[in-house]
């Protein structure tokens, strides 16, 4: 049964001119990459990626882009919204792994949640192990003022932040995917002197969340290098529970609300529409523009 809970917004923080984070004093016991359905009665109900969860509760980092988020942005702490979930698959949490996270825009939220979870787990096991999970966090944004969660990430142990902005106002000027070659070896398994020595001997695992064309570049780079990856694929959702078929992808017919949103690179490589088109709420194909 889908039970919607009406939860008070505990706190709202402004992240960038278009992005706010809404905190809820409620535990979902979610995993990074999962989503909730957020219902504003009389307006709409939409899926939102869970941007954070700790012992105090969870948070949603929201980009203002339509009627539902317009309304949400007008709301104040203390007001209530309907939440159901968590739903969907999550990013894998692996020990002794060199993580490369590639975040575009507000994709930084679920990936910073993942980075935090890895550090929590690392802290809870032996000291020796805690040294072994390392993260390169590639963070892309339009410009310096749109860079999300640099503070949050800089507090995490074993995490190195690499920033790219479209206009060069912070970090590398250009796409965040331009930075991939500096962190992924040209060929997997082959010793590469350009790599930071602390990562040697560990499996490389790439996780990405952001605009689909960026994600497609990450997948292609991983496939060329023979590196494993996981990708969060966003599709228009209605029921959120694998019944309506709205978010099924071609040609596999997998439902991104249930068998996604996080899928392996191997699976993403078989999804013909990935990086090519998605469907709008009528079911019509909409092609991604380069």
């Amino acid at each position, binding site marked *: 049964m889908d039970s919607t809970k009406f939860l008070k917004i505990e706190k709202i923080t402004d992240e960038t001119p278009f992005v706010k984070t809404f905190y809820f004093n409620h535990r979902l016991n979610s995993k990074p990459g999962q989503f909730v359905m957020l219902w504003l009665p009389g307006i709409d109900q939409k899926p939102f990626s869970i941007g954070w969860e700790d012992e105090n509760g969870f948070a949603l980092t929201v980009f203002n882009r339509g009627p539902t988020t317009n309304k949400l942005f007008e709301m104040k702490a203390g007001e209530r919204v309907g939440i159901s979930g968590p739903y969907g698959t999550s990013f894998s949490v692996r020990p002794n792994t060199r993580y490369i996270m590639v975040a575009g825009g507000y994709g930084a939220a679920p990936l910073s949640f993942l980075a935090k979870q890895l550090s929590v787990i690392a802290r809870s096991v032996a000291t020796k192990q805690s040294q072994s999970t390392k993260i390169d966090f590639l963070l892309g944004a339009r410009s310096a003022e749109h860079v999300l969660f640099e503070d949050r990430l800089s507090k995490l142990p074993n995490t190195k932040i690499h920033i790219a902005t479209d206009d060069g106002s912070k970090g590398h000027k250009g796409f965040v995917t331009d930075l991939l070659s500096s962190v992924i070896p040209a060929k997997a398994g082959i010793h590469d002197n350009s790599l930071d020595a602390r990562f040697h001997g560990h499996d490389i695992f790439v996780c990405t969340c952001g605009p689909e064309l960026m994600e497609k570049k990450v997948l292609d780079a991983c496939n060329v290098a023979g590196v494993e990856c996981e990708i969060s694929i966003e599709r228009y959702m209605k*029921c959120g529970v694998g019944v309506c078929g709205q978010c099924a992808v071609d040609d596999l017919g997998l439902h991104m609300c249930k068998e996604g949103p996080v899928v392996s690179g191997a699976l993403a490589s078989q999804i013909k529409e990935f990086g090519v088109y998605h469907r709008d709420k009528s079911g019509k194909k909409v092609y991604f523009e380069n």
Partner: protein
Amino acid sequence: MLTTTFLNKTFANPIVLASGILGVSAASLARAVKDGCGGVTAKSVSLEPRSGHPNPTTAGMEHFFINAVGLSNPGVDAAVEELKKFKELSVSPLIGSIFAGTPEEFAVVTEKICAAPIDFLEINVSCPNVSKEFGKPFAYSTEAVEIITKKVKAKATVPIIIKLSPNAWNIDEIALAAETAGADALCAVNTISGMIIDCHSRKPILHNKQGGVSGPALLPIALKCVYDIYKKVKIPIIGTGGICSGEDALAMIMAGAALLGVGSAVYFRGSEVFEKICEEMEKIMEEEGIKNLEEIRGAAHSS
């Protein structure tokens, strides 16, 4: 054991994916075949694309599922391409489904969709969730059903199936009107009109306020409708409404159904539900010494 012939077409089993569930794309339909459906019904399409209602469009509860998706679809032209693609992915029988606002428009959409490689065409005159735009469903009126059936039959190049509403108190009379007007088969039933209200927000949960109820709560209503229709007409019936298990499926055959529509069961038992129902049917048939479905079709009618 479960092989079923329906209007001269062979189905590996009588389970047919009901319209509106998993039916947006060819890939999703093909996946339902992989998961065990003997045939599939695509989501209903209209002349022009439709976005449908805002969310919440569906809600699942313990004994029922309710939806008011609002007949979202990419329009018949895009649908023809998806239906063509389905036939590239699967050899399974394919039922197209259409709806329209007027009898004339039904004829136009029929002509267009018949360009697709469909085996049958379902005529959805019974969606309970779009009355603001289209008025009361045509399925409540013998006269409307008769006119639409005639118009569609004149244009269709495949057998037509009229989908009826359990909200019609005289569903058997409406079934007879469809048969008389030339329908090749019937689908009974569509969802029944209903509503759920959230006691915290004090509002109906579905954005459209009212929706169509399906799932286990619909089964006894659907069984009675199919039972009554079977008495009244000669043409075959796709028995649909609340079928979630092998027992439900056999009961529907005993009411008189030729094929069985299964939809919301996906919510209750997952996407593998089609295969599960078939296995359960076979198990019960073995226990009860039933060799084939013909043996028990309409069995509930014998005195």
